[in-house]
């Protein structure tokens, strides 16, 4: 029998074992536990937000210890939560260089819903630009795999042939799709949650729907569609800045606003508390108005 296949088998098992040293069990719900990834040696663990259903959380460490953990914060927009486990000597996951990722490359999906790490094998199926989740969060890069998401794998890593993490998987991002979060998104969320306990998002306090602009105004507005304000909270950021029911928002801070999704994309956390220009159509004319952006509460 050829030793090559046995070498392949051993290399796969070694990769799982090595990467599994940074994969923890996350006990945050009554049914099957889920998985978390060690972010730093001092006990910071990243998990899938949807797997934390109760306030008390325990973490099963790769060395077999089970310790209590505090929920530092959650970002439902990208289905991430940051936990602080009572442990100090953990092995942080090694992440792959984002430039090294290639479609078709071998990946293993890891999880630890029980005592030991589990693995499935597949390839990186798709790699594309940033996208917005149905929950309104922005993900810096689209990562998809055909590796099976075994029960309890959410919050676990997708690792490459070097055992380095290429993404954090969650079945809660888009149901029925095996998607993963890239390093940039995980890092930004972890840093925001550690610093503020929450991820800041801009807020206007409006209800709106996309409409086509009158043909005569398209050139002046610089685009064909905008967002018609159907509702403006009187004491909300938009209301206090002078936006009115019936206005059609065209751009915010220079970014085109053609759909609710593009408005959410324009309302990044960096705009909170800032006065930014809004272009809108009111009474058949294109106008500019300064809007003081508020912060969305969870």
């Amino acid at each position, binding site marked *: *029998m*050829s030793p090559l*296949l*046995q070498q392949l088998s051993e290399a796969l098992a*070694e990769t799982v074992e090595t990467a599994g040293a940074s994969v923890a069990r996350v006990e945050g719900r009554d049914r099957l536990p889920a998985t978390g990834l060690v972010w730093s040696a001092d006990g910071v663990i990243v998990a899938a937000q949807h797997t934390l259903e109760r306030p008390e959380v325990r973490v099963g460490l790769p060395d077999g210890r089970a310790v209590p953990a505090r929920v530092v914060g959650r970002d439902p927009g990208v289905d991430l939560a940051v936990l602080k486990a009572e442990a100090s000597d953990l092995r942080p996951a090694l992440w792959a260089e984002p430039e090294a990722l290639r479609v078709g490359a071998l990946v*293993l999906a890891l999880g630890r819903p*029980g005592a030991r790490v589990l*693995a499935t094998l597949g390839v990186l199926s798709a790699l594309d630009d940033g996208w917005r989740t149905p929950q309104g969060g922005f993900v810096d890069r689209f990562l998809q795999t055909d590796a099976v998401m*075994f029960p309890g794998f959410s919050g676990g890593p997708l690792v490459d042939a070097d055992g380095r993490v290429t993404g954090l998987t969650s079945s809660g991002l888009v149901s029925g799709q095996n998607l993963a979060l890239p390093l940039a998104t995980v890092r930004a969320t972890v840093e925001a949650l550690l610093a503020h306990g929450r991820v800041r998002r801009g807020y206007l306090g409006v209800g709106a729907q996309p409409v086509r602009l009158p043909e005569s105004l398209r050139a002046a507005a610089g685009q064909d569609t905008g967002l018609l304000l159907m509702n403006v909270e009187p004491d909300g950021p938009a209301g206090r800045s002078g936006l009115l029911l019936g206005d059609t928002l065209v751009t915010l801070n220079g970014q085109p606003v053609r759909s609710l999704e593009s408005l959410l994309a324009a309302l990044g956390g960096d705009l909170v508390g800032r006065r930014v220009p809004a272009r809108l159509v009111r009474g058949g004319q294109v106008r500019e108005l300064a809007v003081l952006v508020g912060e969305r509460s969870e």
Partner: protein
Amino acid sequence: MTILQQLSQAMAAVTAQARRSLVQLTNGQRGGWPAGQGSGILWSPDGLIITNAHVVQRRALTATLPDGRELPARLLAHDAARDIAALQVDAAGLPAIALGDSRALRPGDWVAAVGHPFGVAGAATAGVVIGSGPDLPEQARGGEWIAVNLRLRPGNSGGPLVDAGGRLVGVNTLMTGPEAGGAVPVHVVQQFMHEKIGR
């Protein structure tokens, strides 16, 4: 030869070897495709065959050996909880499968299964071990199992799961998802044989 060609040949060789010890089990109802079909494993040269208890269901079976012979198979022992059954055919000099070490399996280890999924004779599927032991997620039954990341279908039941060396590590038992299934570890089969058959 490129490494991919070498790997491909090695996978085909392991599969061919597993198929030499693969038995087809039918309940005698001809034409009822694919009703009553399952797989079995040649355990010893003198005609012992291992399969799942749920394949046998205490009925008289016909075993089609790898050389094409069709022989009546007599039920020797049966354990529904561990889903193992032992059958006997009157034959000698059969190509018994080599046994591997299911306790040494690790997540990520390469494995292949052969069987008769939906009646397709001797079909192969390959993948990796997800994990093994008594504490796998969503495992309704007790006992020890191997979770595998490959494509098991009705008719794979009772067939061999082999490792990268072509040795038997499990008896394929059920599908738990489109690309995941479960197998009875070979050391559990060995315990069963020791208890029930005395060998």
